[in-house]
């Protein structure tokens, strides 16, 4: 079977909703700068689900924070919808963080509505939209619960709802299901796809779970460590919608193994 491949050096089309080019980034430590990312180009077209995988320390989370505009890279440019930007773009780009990052002193509803509060939307509208989003992620009955009263999976759902309430053109997700047990992780993945079917925006999804990456994505960017760089972009041409059973098909396993070999070959 031949797998269509994208060349990492391929010229970026203006179609890309979000893209970064020529990213260099290094951290300052007592022993001098340590390069974290070297010459990284990443882009995602409209309505694409793109995953970034790689060994720990390859800078995939850093890359996501750069895409989010939360870290200014040492060098390189960032474009959202064709325009060069330097900071966060809350009206276009939303971020779901690794550990849910809920405000512990706010109820689930107030957490979901937080971006609207920052936008100074009227209270009634915030509440209505917040409830709508909570219902969408299956937490309609939990609006008044505090984060500590929710399970890990529920907290992550709240975080996803909070990101989606911004109606973002791009949703950045930093290992959102990394802290969950395997069963919950699978359920969350399935549910994320169902949600995404509805919203159909661009998603960039960082994970270290290869099966998860294959199951969710249209394409997977494979990174290597020391220094962090893009090794290859792999197109995932599995049909959608994708039932869970697809994870048992030969094609799925083939793609997963290919990613596995790519990562192994870099070590």
């Amino acid at each position, binding site marked *: 079977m031949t797998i269509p491949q994208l060349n990492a050096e391929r010229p970026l089309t203006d179609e890309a909703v979000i893209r970064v080019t020529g990213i260099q980034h290094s*951290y300052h430590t*007592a022993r001098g700068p340590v390069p*974290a990312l070297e010459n990284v180009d990443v882009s995602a077209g409209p309505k694409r689900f793109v995953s970034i995988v790689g060994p720990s320390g390859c800078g995939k*989370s*850093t890359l996501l*924070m750069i895409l989010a505009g*939360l*870290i*200014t890279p040492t060098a390189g440019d960032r474009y959202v919808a064709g325009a060069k930007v330097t900071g966060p773009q809350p009206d276009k780009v939303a971020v779901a963080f690794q550990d849910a990052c809920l405000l512990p002193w706010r109820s689930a509803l107030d957490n979901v509505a937080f971006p609207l509060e920052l936008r100074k939307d009227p209270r009634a509208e915030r509440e209505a939209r917040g409830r709508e989003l909570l219902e969408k992620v299956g937490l309609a009955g939990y609006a008044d619960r505090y984060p500590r009263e929710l399970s890990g999976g529920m907290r992550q759902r709240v975080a996803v709802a909070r990101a989606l309430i911004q109606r973002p053109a791009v949703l950045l997700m930093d290992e959102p299901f990394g802290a969950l047990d395997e069963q919950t992780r699978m359920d969350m993945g399935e549910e994320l796809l169902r949600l995404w079917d509805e919203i159909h925006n661009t998603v960039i999804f960082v994970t270290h779970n290869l099966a998860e990456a294959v199951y969710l994505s249209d394409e997977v960017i494979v990174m290597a460590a020391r220094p962090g760089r893009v090794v290859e972009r792999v197109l995932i041409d599995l049909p959608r919608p994708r039932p869970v059973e697809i994870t048992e098909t030969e094609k799925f396993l083939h793609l997963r193994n290919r990613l596995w070999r790519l990562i192994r070959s870099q070590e």
Partner: protein
Amino acid sequence: MSTVDEVRGRPVADVALPEPERDRSRRTLLGWRLAVVALLLVCWELVPRLMSAPSAFIVPLSASLRAGADQWSPIVGSLWPTLSAILVALVFAWLVGIVAGFVIGTSPRLRFLLLIFGALYAVPLVVVYPLISVWLGPGQVSKVLFASLYGVIPVLLTTASGVRSVDEGLRRSAQSMGASPRQLLTKVLIPAALPVVVSGLRLGGGLVLIAVIVCEMLASTSGGIGTLITAYRVQFNAGAVYFCILVVLAFALVMDQTLGAIERRVAGDAAKTTRTQPTPG
């Protein structure tokens, strides 16, 4: 997580640095602190001169030192009543606090007493001193009693909480290995509770010092350096007042550092060294 570097709030304590770097930063910190002290002293010398303030209120450092030299023998003479009261009260507060804390901490039936002592923490105990001095006269005895009372409460509370926080599993496993009640006490409870207990001792030590100074300042017949400070204030001898304050501050620094060093040694390097519990007075 390296991603937080750019957005992180500034850390206050020098945590998580590798050993040599922590040492170096500790040394530079000490250097900076000494520099600040030096700056303060220079300001103390210069500001009163530039302001030409009345000498009864604010005097430069050099004038304070001169006043201290003039009054050298009464100041040295006043140190003994203060120091002896602190030492005796320290022993009382520590002994009573540790024993009572142990008894209350290990006995579920006496636990309710912690509620009373906890509530006493909210009471400004200074007002009890006049009562004690009515009962016992304003001399050394009432000073020691008041200071012991002042210092005993944190020692008692921390000891009790230290004993209570000893892991139940630890206790059970020792018992299952056939530890006698005495062995349980000396081999499990005391070593396990020690770090917390020692932090209470430091806290209580600070309070004893505070209490002794307060008594001495309030009662003109009590003797000691606090009484002397009040006397100089009444005579408008500002230089001598400041000199005595410096003497007590120096003593407080030595005492706090000593107790802190003991605390660190007992608790090991892993324990946090910053104090969160403040001392009233």
